[in-house]
């Protein structure tokens, strides 16, 4: 699907994460190479979304190591904001800022956080809006857009920070079936440009088409990982087979 360079960009080593007494991640290890497209699938509550939240330090981990481009996330001296500049994240519920227009949503972080030049950011925002096919909605407010449109704006908003890695957390789960496709097409465009992508998704067909590697998680552990072809056609673990039987 894409050219996979040698250097791993995101590395998780034996990551443990608990919420109170509930251990949600019980030793997660994975390595994502530059420009690799990785899908994480698994039953609800298996810790998929938590993995993403740990990678950009929205959720601090209890043990193990996560590095993003060589930067250790599990470090008390971590500059979380420097990390988050490298890692874009798109949420299930879009989370656009409702009091700002589409264009302002996209420009806010580059202007206020990165202190970039306004004209330059605006040009980039317009080109990203073109890419997600929403140029005509520049001045609309999020409340005036459909779920699929809002999600595409959210993707453009993340991309405008020029991240090294994009994470998509069940981004189509809250959408009407007819708007799911437009968002998947957008993610595919992003992936095809060589962006490193980590997706948590329930869209099995999409995961199969787009991914370089598929990870299957259950109860806080990675049960198996494989190329999409082998994963879907020849699952190794009993739990994977049971899950795929249910969803496919």
């Amino acid at each position, binding site marked *: 699907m894409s050219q996979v360079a040698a250097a791993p960009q995101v590395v998780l080593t034996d990551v443990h994460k608990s919420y109170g007494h509930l251990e949600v991640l019980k030793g997660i290890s994975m390595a994502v190479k530059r420009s690799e497209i990785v899908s994480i699938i698994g039953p609800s509550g298996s810790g998929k979304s938590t993995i993403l939240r740990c990678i*950009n330090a*929205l959720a601090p981990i209890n043990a193990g190591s996560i590095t993003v481009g060589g930067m250790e996330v599990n470090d008390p001296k971590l500059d*979380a*904001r*420097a990390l*988050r*500049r490298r*890692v*874009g*994240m798109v*949420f299930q*519920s879009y*989370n*656009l*800022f*409702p*009091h700002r227009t589409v264009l302002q949503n996209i420009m*806010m*972080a580059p202007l*206020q*956080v*990165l202190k970039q030049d306004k004209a330059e950011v605006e040009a980039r925002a317009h080109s990203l809006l073109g890419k997600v096919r929403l140029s005509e909605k520049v001045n609309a407010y*999020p*409340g005036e857009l459909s779920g699929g449109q809002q999600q595409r704006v959210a993707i453009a*908003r*993340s991309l405008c*920070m020029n991240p090294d890695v994009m994470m998509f957390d069940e981004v189509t789960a809250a959408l009407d079936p007819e708007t799911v496709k437009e968002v998947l097409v957008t993610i595919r465009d992003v992936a095809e440009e060589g962006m490193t992508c980590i997706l948590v998704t329930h869209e099995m067909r999409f995961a199969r088409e787009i991914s370089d590697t598929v990870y299957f998680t259950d109860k806080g552990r990675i049960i198996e990982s494989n190329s999409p072809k082998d994963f879907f056609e020849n699952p190794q673990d009993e739990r994977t087979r049971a899950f795929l039987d249910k969803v496919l």
Partner: protein
Amino acid sequence: MTALLDMFGPHSAWAVLIPWFPLILKGFWLNILISVLAMAIGIVTGAALGALQMSKVRLIVLPARVLTLFLRNSPWLVIVFYVMYLMPFEIRVGSQWISFPDWVKAVVAFSLPVTGYISEIVRGGMRAVPTTQWEAAEALAFGPARTVFSIILPQAFKQMLPPTMNLYCSVAMATSLANIVGVQEVITITQTILTTETRPGLILPAYGITLALFFVYVFPISLLSRQLERVWSKGLQR
């Protein structure tokens, strides 16, 4: 017709009261001044106290919470008394003496309950913004202060403005309490007029004037606040 003329005749209550009008208005102007200044001070201190209530550190939250509850739940009149008698009438800054006339003490007194109420309004307004907004801002590398000022407060503002306007209406009306400690506001002046004129028939018309003044001043504000509440509750979508 004759009844109407009687009301405005040379010996009617109105005829007696009209010459006093400039003085009554001057008194009412002091009510407005006290309420506006108390509100301005209370908004600044209340916003700070409200922000402290939102802190993640328990050691900060607890005192802020206790102080807020204390200020909100103390009778305004008692606060006015305390401030009047506890605050010095002048203080020395370097070689300069700064004096506090009674009306300034009234401003300080009324700013205390305002601080408590605004603190709660700010806390409630910020709570009403979904936590996913904080998360989205965090994921975009916004720092905490910028998140609050660029993302949370502008959304909370619509939530906070109507109750703040209602609070102002209460403060404006409460300034009449300042007459008890002798501030020359509209009620004190009305009482002075009544003792000067010594006509029992004047009591109702005289207080009627103050009632009308407060109503004409406060009612449009309360109307506007209700209007905003209605419009914005419709417009608040995510």
